[in-house]
């Protein structure tokens, strides 16, 4: 079990506020039922469950969430959003977290590292969508 140091500063941190503003979600609405994790099609590849990400965000543990692989494996398929009994759009929280990283001018995927074969083979929609989600 990972130890979490709770603090007033973390709960009131600017990063947590930014996640709230960018996602426009009521972070405290989540009551940790785990429906999002249960239905997530990409969960097998994730290091942290989607429901844990929102719990971290609730507790102001934003840096932890930003370091997770999970936020980059979410494909915004919206399955969690349409099933959440509390009306939380977790896909927007994932997007907000990705944006916090990308807006430091960080490329999660570097367009110039895509192989020539992939550039020829992949449909444009795959590339455009990928760069939209993974580059600043």
């Amino acid at each position: 079990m990972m130890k979490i140091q709770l603090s007033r500063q973390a709960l009131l941190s600017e990063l947590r506020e930014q996640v709230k503003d960018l996602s426009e979600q009521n972070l405290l609405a989540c009551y940790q039922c785990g429906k999002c994790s249960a239905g997530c099609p990409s969960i097998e590849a994730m290091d942290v469950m989607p429901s844990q990400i929102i719990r971290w965000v609730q507790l102001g543990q934003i840096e932890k969430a930003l370091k997770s692989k999970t936020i980059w494996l979410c494909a915004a398929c919206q399955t969690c959003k349409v099933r959440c009994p509390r009306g939380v759009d977790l896909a927007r929280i994932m997007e907000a977290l990705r944006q916090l990283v990308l807006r430091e001018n960080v490329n999660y995927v570097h367009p110039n590292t895509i192989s020539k074969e992939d550039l020829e083979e992949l449909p444009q929609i795959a590339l455009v969508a990928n760069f939209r989600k993974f580059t600043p």
Partner: protein
Amino acid sequence: MSVLELSYMPGCTLKTKAKNFETTTLKLLELLDVKAEELPDWYCCGTTYSLASDNVMNHLGPIRTLVKAKESGRGELLVLCSMCYNTLRRAQELVRGDEEKRNKINEFMYDEETDFAGDEVRVVHLLTLLKESIGFEALKQKLVRDPGDLKVAAYYGCMLLRPREIAVDPVAEHPSILEDLFAACGVESVYFPFRTECCGSYQTVNEKQLVISRTEAITESAVKNGADLIVTSCPLCYYNLDAYQPKVAKATPGFRTIPVMYISQILALLAGLEEIQDFSLHVVDPRPVLRAKGLIGADAAPLAAGAGA
């Protein structure tokens, strides 16, 4: 029959990797007396709807296209690609419901002659057009081939159904529009639990293992439930499910491949439009299945007299 006219936005991939989707749809629509007029200058829809509250910029592409559609004077805009459908519909909903963002977006419309309020154009997906404007029964009248015992796995993916405000089916969690369409055409759809699950989408660029695993789960489920083909309307689902099957087969002994086709390809075949089909864009060749089911080739089965009426 009077001709139904509407604007049409193909999107990027229908001109390249999904050319077979466009060709078969346009020919089919011609047969159904629908005139789909391609907008002279449509814009990239962005493919995936931006979810960050302050990112208005990414919605300009779809909104510009909607303004062009409005200026064309035709009240409806047809889209075939599921991703175009999703971004256009959601951008439209945003403009309609959020006055502040609507004003901001309209400030950027330098080259457009009119503003956009959100409700001037109806965005219709091919499925909605077939169901509501043409009618499955009228479509059935145009079919000339007998599908025999062909079984399809109707794969919705995400973009036609989520969020539910923009879904092509009123029951987004348990849709039936695709199955209803095929049933009307005499084609049996098998139920398979992965029909509305994500294929891995744009993770195909940098997380190939994830998409291989999604492809395996989805295609295996379709095969196990007795399908001969997977049918979809999303060029990205199509690509992932089709192109990754040889990779799955290599890693998983006993894996059975299954062809993936666009809705319009099947409908066009049933309507006897065999000569326009381009099977060169498929990785898993659908011809052996289609031949076995009597849908292509010299001995393609004609519909028994009176069966289509």
